[in-house]
Every structure is written in structure tokens, then in C-alpha cells.
């Protein structure tokens, strides 16, 4: 009964792991290239949107100039919902295909989504005072949007509290995916509970009940918000990639380059 020779041998670390690391490594430079065009588009759209919103779109017949809050309120509200859905999507992809890049995308989006949700709440409250006569009511649309904001906060707080990135990713994914139920509730809440918040002015099935210049301004600002979100998320995801992949070769090469740059300067 002597010890048999060790059956375990060290395998060359290629094969599976190559596929595994491929995505961040190739995505990093790609994201870098996309960055500047995105910023330029975002700035251009913002300027165009604000100009249309303030100088071309006329005063509203009932609300007067307070309605001009629409140019941020609606893009922010839309983005807060869309970003959450995109986050949930990336999380689901990450859980199914076990790709780390998708989790990184998700955590890169969260702060921006939370910001949009906050802006939607803030501008909505400021808009509510002159129009409805109150900053806040516990109506379904408002409450569910507030819950969306909390969901973003919960996602971020949970990720921050967990040291192990893999566990953080998976735990966050659970919130993102389960919380996604909230988004349709927000969207349809004005139909289901007919309370203070107005119904949809823009929908796929009906022509918009809004003067065309107003609509143009709003859509331009919405597109600007899209571009901004993409830009910020790209920068953040690049930062996250470096933070998490510190001990991989491609980040080392990056560090090498930075060192070289330092010594030149």
C-alpha cells in the first residue's frame, strides 16, 4: 500500500480560460474608440435639445413656462426605467453564460441609472408644486418610481458591501432581475390607478398629444440622455475592467504603457 504517483498534473492554462478573458480584453480598446464620438453626439444633441426647448418650443397653453421641465423630466424618467431594464438584461446574460463583462456592464450602469431616477423624482416634485399644488403625493407612479430609486441604491449598496466581486455580481444580479418587475408597474401605473400623474403623451399606438416643436425638443433631449448614459457607462466599465482584472496580462500591459508614459513625461 505505497503511495501511488500523483495523478494530478498541471494543465497548460489555455483553452477555456482564453474564451473567458477574451471579452474584457477586446472590449476595452473598442470602448475607448467609441468614447469620443459618443461624447460629441451627446453634446450636440443637448445643445440642439435645449435650444429647441427654450427658444423654439412655445409656451404651453395651460401650464405656461413651467412645462419646460418636461425636457429633463421625461428623458430622465425614461432613462431611469430603460437603464434598469438594460442592467437586468446584462445580469441575466451574466448568470446564464457566466461572462464577467456583462456583470461589469451592469455595475457600470447602476450609478447613472440611480442618478436619472433621482432627477426624475426631483424634477417631478418641482413640477408638481406649480401644477398639481403639491410636491409629493403617495400616488402609484410616484411611489413606484421612488422604489426604483431605492432598488438602484440597494443594488449599489449590496455590491459595495461584498468584497468578493463574484459574489457581489451574483447577489446584485438577483436584485436587478427580480426588481425589473417594478418597471412595467411604473409604466402602466397611470393606467391602472388613475390618480394625479398624467397619462402618456407619447405612445406607440397613438399620435402624440403634444405640439410638434415641444415633442422635438423632448425627443432630442431624450436622445442626448441616451448618448450621455452610454458615454459614462463606457468610461466606468473601462475603469471597472482595470480594477477587477488587475492580475491579468492585458491590464499589466496597460500598466506598462502607463509607466512608459510616466517616464516620458
Amino acid at each position, binding site marked *: 500500500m505505497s503511495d501511488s504517483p500523483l495523478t494530478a498534473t498541471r494543465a497548460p492554462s489555455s483553452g477555456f480560460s482564453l474564451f473567458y478573458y477574451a471579452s474584457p480584453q477586446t472590449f476595452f480598446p473598442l470602448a475607448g474608440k467609441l468614447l469620443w464620438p459618443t461624447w460629441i453626439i451627446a453634446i450636440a444633441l443637448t445643445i440642439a435639445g435645449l435650444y429647441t426647448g427654450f427658444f423654439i418650443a*412655445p409656451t*404651453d*397653453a*395651460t*401650464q*405656461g413656462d413651467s412645462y419646460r421641465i418636461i425636457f429633463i423630466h421625461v428623458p430622465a424618467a425614461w432613462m431611469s426605467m430603460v437603464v434598469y431594464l438594460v442592467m437586468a438584461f446584462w445580469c441575466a446574460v451574466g448568470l446564464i453564460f457566466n461572462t464577467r463583462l456583462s456583470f461589469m456592464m451592469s455595475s457600470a450602469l447602476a450609478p447613472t441609472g440611480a442618478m436619472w431616477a433621482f432627477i426624475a423624482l426631483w424634477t417631478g416634485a418641482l413640477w408638481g408644486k*406649480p*401644477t398639481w399644488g403639491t410636491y409629493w403625493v403617495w400616488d402609484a407612479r410616484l411611489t413606484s418610481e421612488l422604489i426604483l430609486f431605492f432598488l438602484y441604491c440597494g443594488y449599489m449598496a449590496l455590491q459595495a458591501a461584498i468584497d468578493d466581486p463574484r459574489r457581489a455580481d451574483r447577489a446584485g444580479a438577483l436584485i436587478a432581475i427580480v426588481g425589473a418587475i417594478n418597471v412595467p408597474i411604473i409604466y402602466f401605473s397611470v393606467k391602472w390607478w388613475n390618480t394625479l400623474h398624467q397619462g402618456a403623451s407619447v405612445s406607440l399606438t397613438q399620435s402624440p398629444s403634444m405640439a410638434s416643436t415641444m415633442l422635438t425638443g423632448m425627443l432630442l433631449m431624450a436622445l442626448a440622455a441616451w448618448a450621455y448614459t452610454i458615454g459614462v457607462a463606457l468610461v466606468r466599465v473601462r475603469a471597472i475592467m482595470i480594477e477587477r482584472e488587475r492580475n491579468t496580462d492585458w491590464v499589466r500591459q496597460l500598466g506598462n504603457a502607463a509607466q512608459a508614459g510616466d517616464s516620458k513625461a
Partner: protein
Amino acid sequence: MKPRQKRFALIAVGVIALAGAATLVLTAFEDNMVFFFTPTQVAAREAPQGRTFRIGGMVEEGSLERGADGTSVKFLVTDTVNKIPVTYTGALPDLFKEGKGVVAQGKLNDGGVFAASEVLAKHDENYMPPEAAHALEQAKKAQGTVVQ
């Protein structure tokens, strides 16, 4: 049961529960969950006496009277069937207009007058410049005269 069958049974139970939830939500919506009463309900004495509640409807055209002190107002809330008189002292929201939606919170006093402590304006999804609104109004009026 094999583990696989167990899992299937669990999924089935879950789906049934979700379906049950959906039906319950739908039945809840059939009921009046909304936190305001219509003037018709108030007229039918369905609303509570001496307690705070909310009333919702349209401000009757031409019913708005401003008090001498400048801050108290009186108006009728209508759902086109019944009308309830409402009194209120305080600043009105800017969207408060005759013919537009309103939600008021307060109590019904003995005279059947609703004493509001808060008045909120409800606004629809239409946005248009004043000229367009004017034109629309003209058109409506014209149509009205034709029908009459």
C-alpha cells in the same frame, strides 16, 4: 418523487400562485381602489360624514367664485351627473381651471358643502401653444353651436 419531478411540481405551484395573484389584482381594480369619491357617490351618501376624504372630478364651468378676502374660493365639482359645492381657503395650484380635473381633500359639513383643506389640480396629457388652444376652443364652440 424524483428530484426532477419535484422541481416540476414546485414550478407548477409557483405558476398557479402567480396566476392567482393576477386574478386578485384584476378583481381589486374592478373595485374602487382609488382614494377619491365621485360627486355621484357623495350625493348618494356613500361618502363618510365627518371624516376626511378626497373628492375628484371636474371644476364646473362658470362655478368659480372668489371670496372678498382674495384667498377663499367656492366652486362646484362635477362628474357631469352630480355637483358638489366645495369651499377652500388658500393658494390654488396654477393648473386649477374651470373645466379641468381637480382632487380636493377635506370633510363634508352638515350643509352638504365640502370644506377642502387641500386642493390639487389634475392635468391631462395635452401640450400645445396658447394659439392652438385658442383655435381648438373656437372650433369646439363652433361645433357646439352647430349641434345646438
